[in-house]
């Protein structure tokens, strides 16, 4: 049983490191996305081995089901231009930066592993009750201790959706030439065009003066007719 757990951990760890390496090393972005998928699946397995079943399920649903698919969608949308062929520009700077970061990180890990070698484990993995990490216990925490960040995260997702729509839709006529942009801009928008009485009635329709002006009713009807026509035009 212990041996089985160790085999599971080491296989998952190997697959996770391989997936991360595939993300970083592969030239084709689709292969990078597949490496990310492999990493996510093996991390979900590690979550399950850490008694976090609900998080393993969330990892599979949100990452593998939504995020990787979104990446693949954008890669397929961009087509062949999603992959950038290598050229030498800035290669030295990038190699130095990445190399320094990787060297520092790996040396730090090696030093930490070397320092902790031989000493008994400082973080013994204790026993848990059966409900730990399941959806019952997790939901109880989420709706008692963490209720405020939970509600705030819904607001965050809402704002992100609105922002993503606003950024991805773009403005009308950005990719056009100057003449085309002017021709687009010179077309009057029907809903925005001012009718002669719109400013007047927007002020007076709430006051008592609109009731006093008896001939205004005809103008109201006229205004309503133009508004309907412009709406039909739009």
């Amino acid at each position: 049983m212990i041996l089985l757990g160790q085999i599971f951990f080491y296989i998952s760890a190997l697959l996770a490191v391989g997936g991360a390496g595939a993300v970083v090393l592969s030239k084709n972005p689709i292969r990078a996305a597949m490496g990310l998928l492999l990493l996510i699946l093996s991390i979900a397995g590690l979550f399950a081995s850490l008694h976090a079943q609900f998080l393993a399920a969330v990892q599979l649903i949100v990452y593998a089901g939504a995020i990787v698919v979104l990446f693949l969608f954008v890669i397929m949308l961009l087509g062949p231009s999603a992959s950038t062929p290598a050229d030498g520009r800035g290669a030295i700077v990038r190699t130095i930066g990445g190399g320094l970061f990787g060297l520092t990180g790996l040396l730090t890990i090696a030093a930490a592993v070397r320092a902790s070698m031989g000493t008994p484990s400082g973080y013994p993995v204790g026993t848990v009750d059966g409900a730990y990490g399941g959806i019952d216990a997790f939901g109880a925490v989420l709706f008692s201790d963490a209720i405020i960040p939970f509600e705030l995260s819904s607001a965050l997702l809402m704002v992100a959706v609105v922002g993503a729509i606003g950024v991805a839709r773009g403005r009308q006529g950005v990719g056009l030439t100057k003449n085309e942009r002017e021709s687009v801009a010179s077309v009057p928008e029907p809903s925005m065009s001012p009718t002669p009485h719109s400013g007047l009635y927007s002020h007076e329709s709430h006051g008592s003066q609109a009731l006093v002006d008896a001939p205004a009713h005809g103008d109201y009807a006229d205004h309503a007719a133009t508004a309907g026509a412009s709406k039909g035009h739009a």
Partner: protein
Amino acid sequence: MIPGEHYIALSAIIFVIGGVGFLVRRNVLVTLMSIEVMLNAANLALVAFNRSHLARGAGQIYAGQNHTGQVFTFFIIAAEAAEVAVGLAIVLSLYRLRRTVRSDEADLLKN
């Protein structure tokens, strides 16, 4: 039983790989994926520390064992979904503007 240090060491290795990818690669899509890799490493460390420290902290309402790291991971996943949505929208916008997904050609603010 796997000790907690193994998970932490694995998490650090994955984080370093993701950081190197973020610094070295120029394709914006791969850069975003490297950020995903780093966030996944952080999630793994949080869950592993949570599994190692199960004692309930003071002031917590829930009566069972401690779930703090797992809840933190849950919120990181939510924030990351938002980040990917906005990031890929920016990638599409950049492609529409410059017909490229190279991060060093996004230099509209240069000079």
